[in-house]
């Protein structure tokens, strides 16, 4: 599985499936984390889990859409970011009792990877449905990352008295 992903070309189905997998992993990671963190910051982990789940659903709906079905077998260039993307799936660098700042930093790092992945995919696909889909997903990630950044600033950089 891993070696396949590393090959130069892949089908759209493969790429999107990999992305969905990435989100699925994240979702279960956050879900597992929920009971481990103290209640005051649990909202954060729950929010992140919810966001990932929404992602998974969105991608699965995408695969099922009739327009998309015709393009699933299209060959596309696998992005460079994919390697780090895969690493992120494999190696969550978060301790057992993380605080809010750690959770946020972790989530930001993941968003960054996803963002780069989609941006590259969008750049690699010629204008058309797939291009639009990846552009949309890239925008989606940008928005989510911006939300997280703002939250990070609010929580960590409150500015002081």
């Amino acid at each position, binding site marked *: 599985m891993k070696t396949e992903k590393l090959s130069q070309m892949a089908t759209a189905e493969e790429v999107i499936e990999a992305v969905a997998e990435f989100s699925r992993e994240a979702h279960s990671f956050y879900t597992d984390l929920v009971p481990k963190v103290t*209640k005051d*910051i649990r*909202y*954060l982990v729950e929010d992140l889990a919810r966001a990932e789940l929404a992602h998974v659903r969105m991608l699965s709906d995408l695969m099922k859409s009739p327009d998309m079905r015709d393009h699933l077998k299209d060959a596309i260039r696998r992005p460079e970011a994919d390697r780090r993307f895969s690493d992120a799936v494999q190696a969550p660098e978060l301790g057992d009792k993380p605080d809010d*700042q750690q959770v946020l930093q972790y989530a930001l790092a993941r968003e960054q990877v996803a963002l780069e992945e989609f941006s590259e995919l969008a750049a690699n696909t010629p204008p058309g449905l797939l291009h639009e889909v990846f552009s949309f997903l890239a925008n989606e990630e940008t928005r989510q990352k911006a939300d997280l950044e703002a939250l990070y600033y609010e929580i960590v*950089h409150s500015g002081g*008295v």
Partner: protein
Amino acid sequence: MGSLRDVLSPFTAWKHVIETPVTIRNPIGREAADGYRGFHQNDIEKCIGCGSCEVICQNAAIDMVPVSDPVDGDSGLRPKIDYGRCCWCALCVDVCMTGSLTMSNEYTWVDTDPDAFRFIPGVDPKPWDDLEKGYRREGGRVLTGAERVEMGELAPEARIDNFDEIVAGYTREQAMIEADRCVECGLCVATCPAHMDIPDYIAAIREGDYDLGLQILYETNPFSEVCGRVCTHKCETACAARHEGDPIAIRWLKRHIVDNVSEDRRLEIVGTPQTLPTRRKVAIVGAGPAGLTAAYDLARQGHAVTVYEAQDKPGGMMRFGIPEYRLPYAALDRDIAVIAAQGVKIETGVRIGHEITMDRLRAENDAVVLSIGLHIGRSTRIPGTEGGGVETAIDLLRRITAGEEVPVPKQVLVIGGGNVAMDIARSMARLQKVKHGAVGVTVTALEDFAHFLADREEIEESLEEGVEIIDARGPQEVVRFKSGNRKGEVKGLRSWAVTSIFDDKGRFAPQYDQGDERLHPAEMVVEAIGQAADVSILGEDLTEALDWNRGRLAVDVAGRTSEPWLWAAGDAVHGPDVITAVADGHRVAASVGAMLMAMGEVAR
């Protein structure tokens, strides 16, 4: 009989018969002079609804009527003019605090409905709304003072080697002039978190009645001496005077009142609780502004209040966060003495969660108020922050106040652009000056100067004291020596330039220019980026039982948590600000008091 000339010369008047008439054939529509005082215009975006126009109108021609919802610094009211009364004197234009109210040069208008001549300029559309011509007062407003009385301060060289208070305080003459500028619109009252009766106490200064002034202060704020020095003075951002001049120095005037009432007299005026003891007990965790304000209110209601404080002196962040040169400890002590005089017991050096558990507090009291403040300094957690030579500002400030020995290297780097960053930078600068005879402090902030979080005066004073401030730098790594006899020690901070910090929606989205990398040499790095509350004192069970709202204790408008016996107030709930904490203390005390009262009714 006169001469023939006397008979004939009057007939020269006949020559006018062949002249063109001088009267205007159609006087309706004749344009008035450029500066004519005709019907009013009001730029309602600029207007703040302060009502000065109404106050000055000697004909009572102006009513202030609601046009939009009030917001900070704008009452949402706008002047409605009754032209049956207006005498076109334009004093309303001259006094207008924003310059929004003007007069067009339109003066002819015929209507059979007398009520048509009552309208809200700028809101009820009129043909002259956009006329450029009409009465505009010359220069700025001249009927109320526009410039703030300058505050006397220690010169930088006189203050840099000590922690003496910098601000001198107004003399009576200065205060009188400054107080005179207030137009008593009261827009500030809504903005002040504690809704202090600002125009009233400023009026007391004008009357020279400091006893009355103090009494007014204590009605809303038992920390007036503290707030008179370090308040974030949000009120001044809502001041009507700021639109065409300086806002009234509300904070300094508050301080001026307290400065002019002796400690003994203050105790006399405030007095002690005038009610019988209720035998209800309240425990308050944390002797900061919120906790002590709540204690003050509850004690005056007759309840037995004990405040538990982890540090060995009360005051919380006011003592341990704010440097002495901004807030002398004696000033804080005087405010606290009045609170203690209400019978409030303050147990210092008692750490809840250690010496006493929350459970015990709950068991022994009718109500518990949690006002623990934000005492954990956040770290950027960039590489290199772990290990010696990296401190948090909050911790350092506390140790300086406590008189502990702190490391004072020759070169210190501070990360952060808020007031805490300035506090620690200036404190370290003083210690350096004493120890090394020279200041070596660099502050790097993510924000550029245009978006700085610290107050302008803090920045200016820091610069005067020789602190170097570099804006728009993103910290990347605390660099440590990799070898040599200083191996592992801090070498400096590596930073990237921040090209923009907020996106076009004003949200945090830092963009770095990695090509613009710098190493700021320093032997110590101090992080002053943000603070958190130490909620671990609640214990696991209580933490789990309580409702939370995005990282903070969920409380109702009155500060009550999901546990009916527990209230929370202050910085930990509403963010770091003394006056907000005071307001919070009042709010919580009212809610606790109401509950205790209800308990009393039931017991009876």
